[in-house]
């Protein structure tokens, strides 16, 4: 394959010059840029960059929302062999300093005053930064900083340069090799500095095309680009695949108009992390609660039917003719209009990725006829590793390896990937590169998982958290705490869960109730309670949570590899796990070690077989005072199930 992004652009411009490439809503009207006009813009920008001194192999930082001219700037940089480095537009100024220093960036193209201000603020730390071009001149008229100019000015420079150097642009594009570096993405490291992930034209284009073949994408797709293009997910969907397939990318008017623009465009191909889908569902739920009683009744009725029938229809399974008829009626009255209200009328393929998605959330979208699927990938793999085929979407797997991907499991359970889409390396960081990429080209994902009977990849946890059971009936079985905890947390009544089992003979867990959900539940049953600790200790609540745990156990028993992770005993904690008490991180992740130390007596009680345990815990209140909570916690036994082998 001898393709680079600029060559793909020129091919589109030659073959179908007047087909739309980009749309942006300006002054209330969708303005279209066709491929020929885009190519002309890219040529002007490339000449402009050259006139300013940007050379092959240098980096160009791009910061801003999805804007046609920023996309063109990335293409222009690639045309002359420079490397675009998109950064997150919502980052604070200080976060730009490291990438700029690391990549010795001298040139930046940004969206507006906000980004210009941030770059000027850190200019002292980044002396290499010579030129900054902005797209939107608003508020920048009186800025007199050195090297600051508008993109319009850049284009003018470019046209002047083009007059003096005819044929230069074509020669530069011709000189680009597919193996050249195409772009660099900085990954947000949780510790230390972010790392620059270097991708070549080959790796990005190969993955983009493999994904497109998998879902039979054509040049007729419509995509709305509304997530940061510094995130490789958005970049692949609205840049790499855009050029590979030649479909239309639409840029929303502003961040606040995305839902309106979504409705107007009606994308056919859609990508969002689970939180976006969750937000959409919440807005629907809230609006339905405001509706009148008859409408609510109808909606509930229709959704119950959809829940029963929808996913099966989506998966192409046989469905009773009467049910099918009723579903069609529902589609006419409820599901169709609902899809339209969400802007999903024309969606053919929708993907979610990034985090675990709750089964209810997942099946909601599939039940109303939206082909929502999951995929697995990361910045380092150019996204596409595993995708779910149309009729095999499940909430707990992430799909099958697609074209060109090899998957292998390390002894530790870690998933290793080999594909043409792997990163070339981390920028200026051979040590980090060597850590994840071995000599045979296998990339260590850091995720633990396995391929299930149907060949679907199942991610269970971060590899470093996965442990083993020792002794007992499941000696040596894999234990993935987060997998178990997530399953528990998908119940509305469970706020947090902490599972123990590494190096032990069975799995036990702490559960935190969701005060609001359980409180509501108790009120509806006229169950009086005095506060969190009291509610958490009610026998009725324990029974409720026991029911949740046993459902999880039944689910875990479905897979023999995870059957050992069934929760045998659990207790409901008397206080909410809190970041102030050092039990959670600030981003609300469980701090397993801290909790194990603090509640050692409870863990011992769980494994000793005691029926209850007294505990007194110091707590810190929000106003800085501290106090203590004490309770006699009952320890519950949960039913477990024998493993069943299932043919998926």
């Amino acid at each position, binding site marked *: 394959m001898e393709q680079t992004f600029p060559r793909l652009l020129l091919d589109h411009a030659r073959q179908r010059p007047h087909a739309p490439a980009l749309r942006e809503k300006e*002054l209330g009207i969708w303005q279209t840029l066709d491929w020929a006009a885009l190519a002309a813009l890219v040529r002007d920008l490339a000449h402009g960059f050259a006139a300013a001194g940007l050379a092959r192999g240098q980096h160009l930082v791009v910061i801003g929302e999805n804007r046609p001219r920023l996309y063109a700037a990335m293409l222009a940089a690639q045309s002359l062999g420079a490397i675009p480095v998109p950064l997150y537009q919502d980052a604070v100024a200080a976060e730009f300093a490291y990438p700029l220093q690391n990549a010795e960036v001298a040139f930046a193209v940004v969206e507006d005053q906000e980004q210009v201000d941030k770059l000027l603020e850190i200019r002292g730390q980044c002396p290499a930064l010579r030129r900054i071009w902005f797209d939107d001149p608003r508020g920048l008229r009186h*800025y007199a900083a050195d090297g600051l100019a508008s993109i319009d000015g850049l284009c003018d420079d470019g046209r002047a340069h083009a007059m003096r150097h005819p044929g230069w642009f074509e020669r530069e594009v011709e000189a680009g090799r597919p193996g050249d570096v195409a772009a660099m993405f900085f990954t947000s490291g949780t510790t230390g500095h972010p790392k620059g992930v270097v991708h070549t034209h080959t790796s990005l284009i190969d993955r983009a095309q493999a994904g497109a073949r998998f879902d039979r994408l054509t040049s007729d797709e419509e995509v709305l680009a509304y997530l940061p293009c510094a995130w490789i997910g958005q970049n692949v969907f609205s840049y790499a695949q855009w050029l590979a397939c030649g479909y239309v990318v639409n840029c929303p008017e502003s961040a606040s108009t995305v839902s309106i623009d979504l409705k107007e465009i009606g994308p056919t191909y859609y990508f969002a992390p689970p939180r976006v889908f969750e937000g959409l569902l919440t807005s629907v739920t809230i609006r339905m609660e405001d509706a009148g009683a008859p409408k609510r009744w109808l909606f509930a009725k229709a959704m119950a039917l959809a829940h029963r029938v929808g996913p099966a229809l989506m998966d192409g399974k046989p469905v009773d003719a009467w049910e099918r008829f009723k579903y069609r009626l529902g589609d006419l009255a409820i599901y169709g209009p609902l899809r339209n209200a969400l802007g999903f009328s024309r969606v053919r393929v929708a993907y979610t990725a990034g985090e675990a998605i709750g089964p209810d959330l997942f099946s909601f979208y599939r039940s109303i006829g939206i082909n929502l699927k999951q995929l697995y990938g990361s910045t380092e793999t150019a996204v596409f590793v595993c995708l779910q085929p149309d009729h095999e979407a499940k909430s707990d797997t992430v799909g099958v390896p697609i074209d060109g991907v090899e998957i292998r499991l390390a002894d530790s359970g870690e998933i290793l990937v080999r594909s043409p889409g792997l990163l070339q390396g981390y920028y200026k960081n051979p040590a980090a590169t060597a850590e994840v990429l071995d000599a045979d080209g296998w990339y260590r994902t850091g995720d633990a998982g396995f391929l299930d009977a149907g060949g679907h990849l199942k991610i269970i946890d971060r590899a470093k958290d996965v442990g083993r059971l020792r002794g007992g009936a499941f000696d040596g079985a894999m234990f993935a705490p987060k997998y178990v905890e997530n399953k528990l947390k998908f119940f509305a009544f469970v706020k947090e869960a902490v599972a123990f089992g590494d190096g032990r003979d069975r799995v036990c867990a702490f559960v935190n109730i969701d005060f609001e959900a359980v409180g509501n539940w108790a009120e509806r049953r006229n169950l009086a309670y005095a506060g969190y600790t009291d509610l958490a200790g009610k026998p009725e609540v324990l029974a409720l949570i026991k029911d949740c745990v046993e459902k999880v156990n039944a689910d875990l028993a479905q897979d023999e590899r995870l059957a050992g992770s069934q929760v045998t005993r659990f207790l409901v904690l008397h206080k909410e796990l809190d970041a102030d008490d050092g039990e959670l991180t600030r981003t609300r992740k469980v701090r397993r070690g801290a909790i194990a130390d603090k509640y050692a007596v409870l863990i011992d009680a769980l494994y000793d077989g005691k029926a209850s345990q007294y505990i007194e815990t110091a707590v810190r209140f929000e106003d800085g005072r501290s106090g203590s909570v004490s309770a006699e916690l009952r320890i519950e036994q949960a039913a477990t199930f024998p493993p069943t082998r299932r043919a998926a």
Partner: protein
Amino acid sequence: MSASLTVNAAGGASAAPSGAQFQEAGNAAAPAAPAQGAVSPRSGDDAAPGRRIGGVILEVEHITLSFGGVKALNDISFDVREHEIRAIIGPNGAGKSSMLNCINGVYQPQQGDIRYRGEQVSQWSPRTRLRRMAERGVARTFQNLALFKGMSVLDNIMSGRNLHMKRHLLWQALRLGPALREEIAHREKVERIIDFLEIQAHRKTPVGGLPYGLQKRVDLGRALAMEPRVLLLDEPMAGMNVEEKQDMCRFILDVNDEFGTTIVLIEHDMGVVMDISDRVVVLDYGRKIGDGTPDEVRANPEVIRAYLGAGE
């Protein structure tokens, strides 16, 4: 009353830009990005002089206005220069809104002269005064929003274009040929204002359903649609939260900066006034007790007494 507190707050807020504050007042206060709330890092090198403040365009001389026995304004004189931001402040009932109403012709003062670009406004008959002021590019917003609640944001702002529409009713109704072309041109102007005020997401929303801060923004938008040369703002930030106030400040400064519009504003929040205005007039019970740059006004003992003593 909180007046004393706001005086103190203002003192703290404007301590930073000391020297060139007259020119820079606009820049220094600009809350850079509404989303980020980050501090604008404008430093010496790019603080180019923004707008150039010109000559006097509006003169108010010895205005006295009374309602029966109540003297709302008593012998007030001040002037407004081209392109400046001029604030009128004072405790409740000081006569601030009455002053604005005199300027744009709603009230006829019993004594005194108002001259706008050399013309004697106060000599015009009450019937023509309002319209003539509007035609001469004086627009205003209202303290108690006077928007068309049932109409969309777009239509409300479009109504501000009324004076600029040339085709008569019949043409407009037919919406053909020249009338259509005219409407498209007006719509473009309105869309630019919507873009400027960042209310794209609410373009088609009925105004009555919007939060108060946004309604205020629409009110400003409608005034801007007149393409005014002088903008009279009656408490543009009343009832807003801090973030909405920051946004509104930025829009006012941007209007002033981008279009060179002269702005006369009434405001309660001293911090805001001191940050964004070039010169301030202080009224108290219908009298003028201070006039000058924010620093001068802040140091004026009579102003301090009025504010500290005005608490009830």
